[in-house]
Each structure stands twice: as C-alpha cells, then as structure tokens.
C-alpha cells in the first residue's frame, strides 16, 4: 500500500473523529463541562438511523452507492441525537445545578443509561446497515488508494457539515451569540443574549454532529452498543490536542489523531527502511512503532504537542 493509500484511509477515519470532536468541544465551550455521554450520543444517532433506514428502505435511487433512504435516515439520526441531548439537558443537567465537575460525573452515568437502553432494545450483538458493501473504486487502485464510494460519501458529508458549522459560527446571528457566550457567558448575558436559548442550540448542534458521526461510523464499520463509547477516548484525545473548547482546534485535532492512527503502518515501514544507529535503537523503534500500538503512538504525539503548546493546537483563541 502506498502513502497515498494510507492518507486516504486516514482521511476517512478522521472525518468521523472530527464530527465527534467538534460536538464535544462545542458543548464544552458553551455548556462548560466535558460530556462523557457524547460517545453514546453517537451510538443513539447510529441506531436511530438503522431503524429509520429499515423502515423507509432505499426510496428508489442512490447517490455514491448509498440509497436516498440512507440520507433520510442520516437526518433522522441527527435529529434523534439532538432531541435526546436536549431532553437530557432539560431533565437532568439543568435541574441538577451543580458545577462542571459534578456534571462531568453525571454525564458518565448518563452514558451508561443511553447504552443500557440501546442494549435492551437491540441486544449486545453487532449489526450493519442493510446496504450492499462496495468494492474499491477501480480508477484509484493503481495509485494504491483503496477507498469505496461510501468512503467518499463519508468524507463529503463531513466536509459539508463542517463547512456548514463554520458558516453558522462566523456569519449568522446565532453563531455570533455562541461565540460571545463561549468567550464570556456573563458578559454575553448582560449584553442581552438569551444564554439559555443559545445553550440549547449548542446542544442541538453538538449532539447532531455526534449523531452524524455515529451514523457514518456505523456505515464505515458496524453498529454495536459500545461503538461510540469505544471511540470516546480517541475523540477526547483529539479535542485536547486541538485545544479544548475550540471548534477549529477540535477539527485539527480530530484530523491529526485519525491520520496518525491510520498512518502507523507507514511509519513502521519507514522506521524499518531508515538506517538507524545504534542497532539496539533500531530494534527498539521497530518493535514499538507497529500497528499494535497505533493508539498509543497517537497519544504520545498528543503529549508531545501539549508539552510545546499546553493549551492545544488552537492555543488561546476560544471558539
């Protein structure tokens, strides 16, 4: 496999992580706590889409190997994730009225509840969307790039959502209010912004993006009650690497972590090819830089970046 091939794989995997990490970072910057239920919000989106897609079917045509019904299911999945998150905020987080540490702990409990509900409904076994798997795009195979049309759809949809969020944050009234609130909630409130409403919208957008990430994760891999939770650690790494609370940082962090994860086989072949001296160092590196430790390598790089920039890639700039 060529470097291009690994980069392509990395791009697909990063797209999913980016969708997850943006939502997490957004909620952190405005609702002001690290939401551990974020991974399971992704799972909710994925399973809602599964049920919807099962109910509506293909709806005739298909784009990029994906039936129209899947896109409808994607929208319903996003909506369901948003509704569940808003309901949780209204019913649990808001009435609790505790500090961000308390909320963090609460959200771990919420994560278990989400997962348990899904497990009761769907069992603990894995499943997939009823969409025919595709072979790699023939035209790209000679370049060593082995991606399917589905992968293209994942990257494309992620780009649309990310650009959409950028436009929303920079050019709309709501976006300006959100940025104001992330900067200084008290000042925002004093200047007449209805902070509660903005907070709700933040939940809608953050959880919606997580829902989309979950649906794509299900398409990319498979659906299982633990799918989101298993990815949560990587998402947190991405968010912290990017600079927590910063949406653009989360994008960069998610992209980097996903890339490093998928590029590890390339790194390991580079290490094997390089003439490293002395010999014991070469052996050590060859043993350490293997796909077995892909996540560990990503985390080491994260720590290294944080040593240089303690506030993450996006540094001081909030939102």
């Amino acid at each position, binding site marked *: 496999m060529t470097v291009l091939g690994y980069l392509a794989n990395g791009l697909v995997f990063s797209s999913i992580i980016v969708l997850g990490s943006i939502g997490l970072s957004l909620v952190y910057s405005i609702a002001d706590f690290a939401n551990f239920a974020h991974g399971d919000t992704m799972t909710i989106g994925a399973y809602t889409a599964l049920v919807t897609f099962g109910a509506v079917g293909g709806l005739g045509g298909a784009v990029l190997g994906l039936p129209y019904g899947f896109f409808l299911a994607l929208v319903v999945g996003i909506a369901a994730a948003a509704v569940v998150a808003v309901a949780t905020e209204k019913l649990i987080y808001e009435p609790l009225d505790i500090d961000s540490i308390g909320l963090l702990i609460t959200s771990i409990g919420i994560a278990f509840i989400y997962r348990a509900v899904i497990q009761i409904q769907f*069992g603990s076994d894995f499943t997939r969307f009823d969409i025919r798997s595709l072979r790699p795009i023939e035209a790209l195979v000679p370049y060593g790039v082995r991606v399917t049309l589905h992968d293209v759809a994942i990257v494309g949809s992620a780009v649309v959502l990310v650009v959409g969020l950028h436009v929303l944050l920079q050019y709309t009234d709501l976006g300006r209010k959100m940025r104001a609130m992330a900067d200084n909630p008290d000042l925002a409130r004093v200047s007449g912004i209805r902070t509660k409403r903005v907070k709700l919208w933040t939940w809608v957008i953050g959880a919606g993006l997580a829902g989309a990430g979950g649906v794509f994760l299900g398409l990319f891999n498979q659906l299982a009650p633990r799918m989101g939770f298993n990815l949560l650690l990587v998402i947190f790494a991405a968010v912290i690497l990017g600079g927590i609370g910063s949406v653009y940082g989360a994008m960069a962090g998610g992209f980097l972590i996903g890339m490093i994860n998928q590029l590890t086989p390339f790194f390991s072949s580079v290490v094997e090819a390089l003439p490293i001296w002395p010999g014991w160092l070469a052996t050590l590196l060859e043993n350490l830089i293997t796909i077995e430790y892909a996540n560990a390598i990503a985390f080491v790089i994260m720590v290294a970046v944080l040593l240089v920039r303690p506030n993450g890639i996006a540094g001081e700039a909030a939102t």
Partner: protein
Amino acid sequence: MPRDTTDLADRRTLLKLTGGAGLVALSGCLSTTDDGGDGSDGDDGSDGDDGSDGDDGSDGDDGSDGDDSTEAYEIGMVDSLTGSLSAFGERNQRGVELALSRVNDVGIDGRELALAVEDSESENQGGIAAAQKLVNQDGVPFLIGAVGSGVSLAIYESVVEGTDVVQLSQNSTGLNLTDFPGLLRMSPSGRSQSLALSNIISEDGYDEVAITYVNNDYGQSLTDAFVDAYEGEVVYNSPHDQEQQSYSSVVSEMNSSGADAWLFITYQAEFATMVNEVFSSGYEAQFYGADSVSGDNVLENTPEGSIDGMKIVVPSAPVEEENYQSFAESFEAEYDRQPTSWAAYAYDCVINAALAIQAADEFTGAALQETVRRVSGPEGETVTSFEAASEILADGGGPDDVDYQGVSGPIDFDENGDPVGFLQVLEVQEHEYEGIDFVEG
C-alpha cells in the same frame, strides 16, 4: 488577565479529570490481560473460606437426606451477558434454560435445581465480582463459569482455588486452563484447534501464512500453539486489540506480507470488521479461522461471497449422534433456530452439575468434587439423557454406575479437567457454513 488564569486552571482541572475518568474507563480493559499473581488473591482466598462457611450454614441441606426438604438446590453461573463475548452468553443461556427444564421435569430427589446467573461483562474484574457474589454471599458449592478463558482463570485463581467449590467452565478453550486440574471445562482445549488448523493449511498446499490474533490470553496461546505446529513459514504475525473502530492497518499489512493464506484468531465482531475492510479494499486471500470467528452474526454482517472458501475449525457436538439430534430438535422447537455447540456445552454443564448433585451424599463442594467427574466418566452404563441417568442414581446406583454422554460429546474429563472433544471443519460455501470433515481432538 485574571480571567485567563482561571480559564487555564479550568483547563488543567479538566485535563486531570478527563485523564482520571479515562483511566477509570480503561481500567476494566486493562485487567483483561491475565495477571496471575493478583495481589488481592490472598484476601479473596480468605473470602473463599467465608464462602465455605456459607456452605456450612446451608447444613439444612443435610435435611435433604430425609427427603422432606423441598427447597431447590441452588448452583451459580457466571456468564458473559454483556460485553464483547455476549454472543456466547446468549447462546449459553438458551442451552441452560433447556437443560434446567429437562432437569426440573424429573427433579433431583424431588427437589428442583435453581441456577443463579451473574454477568461477567466479559471481563476479568466483572467475572471475579460475579463469582465472589455467588460463592461468598450465595454460598453455591458448584459454579459454572466463565466464557472467556482469561475470565475463567481469574475466577479460579481469585475465588475458587483453595475452596471446595467446583468450577466448570462452559466455553473456555484457552490452552493454559489445562495447567489447572481443579478447573474443569466442557469445551475442548484450543490446542487441538491449532493443530488441526496447521494440518489443514499445510494440506491445502500453503507454505506461507499471515496470522492476526486478538491481543489476549486466548489469541496468544492459540497462535503460539499454531506457530509451533505449523511446518511452513509464518510471514506475518501480529496482535490486534478488541473493539477497535478500524482494522484497515491490519488487513493492509497482511496483504503486504505476500502470504496467500490468512489465519484469523479473533472474535466475531472484529473478524466481521476485517472482512468488510478486506472486501472494500479489494484484497484476495484464502481465509482460515479459529472457532471464535464463526457465527451467524458474521454471515449477516459481511458481504455475500466475501468469505467463500474460508475454512474454520470448530469444537463440535457429535451432530450425527442420536442424543444431539433430539437436543437440536427440542432446541429448534423452543427457539426457532439451530443450536450452536456453545449452547450444547452450557446444556451439558447444567446436566453434569445436576447429576453430580444427585449422586453426591450431601450438597457441599467437597461432596460434589467427588462426583462431578465420575457421573460423566467412562465407567458405568452409557446414558444420553438426564432422565435415564437420574433413574439409575435413584435406584441406588453410585456415580460410577452412570456414564452420561453429553450432547456436546462424551465429556470424560481427563486428569487436567479437559474433556474429550470433537472438532468439525467448516467451509463457507455460498455464504453458509458447511461441515466438510470431522477431527477428534
């Protein structure tokens, strides 16, 4: 400026908390690596003594000699109801329910058999907690458990070892369980699978093989046994972690290794992900697999034709035997699906336990230790159902007068607590498993 510093402090606290919470979340995963000399073992051991006190407490059971007690005999089971091995847990529970209804139709000296099931979450810590509850609080003298080999071993070392409690694992096939004669199991050791796989791959004419295995006790031990036995060259041999969201690195490295035969020693979910990635990357190879990669969930969740020609060795029930067929018939009537051998193992665990209880003088671990191997051992009259075996025992027969032939095989535990097993070679044809051969383990 002051705002900035608080902001910074917030971040720092958050980083700490995130790390801490992450560690907590991970600690469960970490413990899946087998740690034999766990420091808490000593304490657990003494807890175990308390457990046997509990047994003494249930002296009322002695009253059963008087045949007037109607309280059920309660035994325990640790099963993977959730977690990565929950598919096995579901299969086990079907077999267990069927076995319980068989036993309780007849009864054990007029009493019922009750089974307290606890969840191991497919992990060592969960398994130990479940076993501690059953053994130390409920005081069960007979413990069926667990699915994962690491979990079975963890339970044995932390809870059961040093007590009289009988532990019978329903599904563990890890090789190192053989080293613990006190830990019985119903499913045959994976060593026989590794040997069979190496023979099959050699016979098929492949002298190079690429292996990927799940990064735990089970995967490691089966792979080691395979590498020892295989005559050809192992050109790629790499572990992978469970429950990752992508294995494309693994399959692309296997492809780069140049081997035409790929061996997978992993679990269904992981294997299904890999197959989908192999398919969507357009790689071609001859697949081989251990029993843990087979399952309807794999067929349902992989593209049609993507694993055709794959060969899998599975511990198998003697499917041509009459008692298995009657088991399969009632299983299908009950659950509307074919039984798996994992259900058959769990079924036999319960029947074997029930017979051991009936043959024993009293309902204690020490007494059951005496009978558990003998009721299904090679001596005595060959019987194929609980009812027939129970009749012999009720007529005054001892444990050596009965040789229960399980639906999963002849059982016949050897001195290491391993059963005589049958292996079946399956080939995937038109996206269905077809048995093509039998091998005796």
